[in-house]
């Protein structure tokens, strides 16, 4: 009984620890004081107004969104065929290939960022959108593979073979049989990929400039010098985007985490 109680207390303390900083940021973005105050003193939307009036924040939001969308699309276009080949075909070096494609998950992003800075500088692409984009594609591809691969099961393959036996061309089989079956894996892979790109700092920071920057990098550079409620407002927007992504994920595919329903 004591253990139960202790477990309950520890668990709820840990949950509180996880939520508190986000609450503090959202709360202090409404403060009427010129410094960050939590609990907020007064209530104002002025900091959001200030943010919307600053074109550099809007530009950074634009860059981040465009980058995450294009990188996710590219990761799907490259990742889904790769997953199909890995799940469906036997070829030498398959294990090695899979670990190569998954390795950005364990590779320190700072190392990859530095490598891409040096490499893209040699190609004349230094600190360009392309340099950012290729890096983001590399680090988000594992998320696509990880959620699509488990859905390409032998049972699902039998359906593809049936489709081919009935005379469907490979493309028809892919779009009419395979794709509908891996839809939920694609959706969750895409959302994880999008978010990983949207929140990345360690990789982006190498190839951004003062004019072309993503929202997390802009926040990072700003927070080191000044802390004011504008930062809290911008941060709150990114928390909002994250919450939206999770709710979409939960409503469309369902977050089947921590439950035995699989």
């Amino acid at each position: 009984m004591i253990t139960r109680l202790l477990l309950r207390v520890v668990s709820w303390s840990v949950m509180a620890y996880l939520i508190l900083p986000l609450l503090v940021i959202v709360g202090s973005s409404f403060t009427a004081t010129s410094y960050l105050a939590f609990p907020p003193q007064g209530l104002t939307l002025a900091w959001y107004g200030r943010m919307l009036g600053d074109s550099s924040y809007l530009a950074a939001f634009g860059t981040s969104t465009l980058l995450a969308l294009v990188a996710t699309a590219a990761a799907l276009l490259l990742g889904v065929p790769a997953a199909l080949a890995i799940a469906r075909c036997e070829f030498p070096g398959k294990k090695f290939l899979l670990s190569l494609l998954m390795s950005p998950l364990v590779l320190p992003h700072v190392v990859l960022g530095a490598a891409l800075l040096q490499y893209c500088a040699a190609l004349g692409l230094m600190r360009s959108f392309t340099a950012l984009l290729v890096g983001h594609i590399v680090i988000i591809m594992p998320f696509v593979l990880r959620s699509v691969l488990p859905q390409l099961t032998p049972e699902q393959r039998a359906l593809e073979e049936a489709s081919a036996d009935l005379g469907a061309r490979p493309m028809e089989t892919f779009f009419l049989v395979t794709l509908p079956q891996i839809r939920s894996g694609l959706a969750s892979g895409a959302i994880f990929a999008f978010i990983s790109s949207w929140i990345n700092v360690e990789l982006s920071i190498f190839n951004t400039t003062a004019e072309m920057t993503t929202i997390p990098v802009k926040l990072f550079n700003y927070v080191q010098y000044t802390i004011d409620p504008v930062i809290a407002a911008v941060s709150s927007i990114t928390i909002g985007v994250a919450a939206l992504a999770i709710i979409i994920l939960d409503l469309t595919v369902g977050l089947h985490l921590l439950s035995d329903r699989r």
Partner: protein
Amino acid sequence: MSAAMNRALPLLAAPVAFFIAFFAVPMIVVVSSSLMAGGVPSLGNYARVLLDQYHWDVLAATFRIAGLTTVACALLGYPLAYYLVRVVKSAALRRTCVILLVLPLFTSNIVRSFGWMVLLGRNGLVNDALVGVGILDRPMRFLGTELGIVIGLVYILLPFIVLAVGNALAAVDPALEDASSDLGATPFDTFRTVTFPLCLPGLMSGIVMVFTLAVSAYVTPALLSGGKITVFPMLIFQQYSTVFDVNYGGALSMTLLVMTLVLVGLAGWIGNAGATGRKAQ
């Protein structure tokens, strides 16, 4: 064999070409420039990294912070995972908690560390609370200490371990635990001999994930160190952003990469050895 190759090739051509061009080759460029000094092949950069006591101090701080973070994550995350999977009965409550667990993961490190900069400040909520309750006489300095960095990193990495352990736990059939208690085992014995060993692979993968991410973390330490503590990724960033010494920076990058991979490999090996050892029993 060749038929399979013929089918795989068109699917793999684009992704493999992309990974070679923008992942493998850039990494090779870093390795090769780390092996050059003054235009000639040399191991001088590595000597500079490895023979300097300062680098060892930074490495020690980096691994100490990462180690403490990992231990704290495991100690806090395991009970929460157990509670959410085994104790919480309401599916709606569990679902809400899962959403709240994933929300921090979907939020930038910057935003989350920034929350702690506010909370851990001299006049922040944490100090106010500790002084108010009477645990501290006067505000304690968190920012610029290893403790502050650990608090921030644990916060950022905790969901990984909760999800890894929780998913492993959810896959364990409760009937096994029931059988154990029907046969007379105490709840603690059941946990020790049935539940814990079955979740060990999940715990190990969570630990490896947390440790690698903690060793390579740049943003959180940079924001919470207040310029007073240096971790290894900061050295790399300095070389590429301000000094632009790609040879020396490359050697630093490779040092961090090799150390991380060795530790990941070691953890995987220990995990496997533990699993097979238990099977043999």
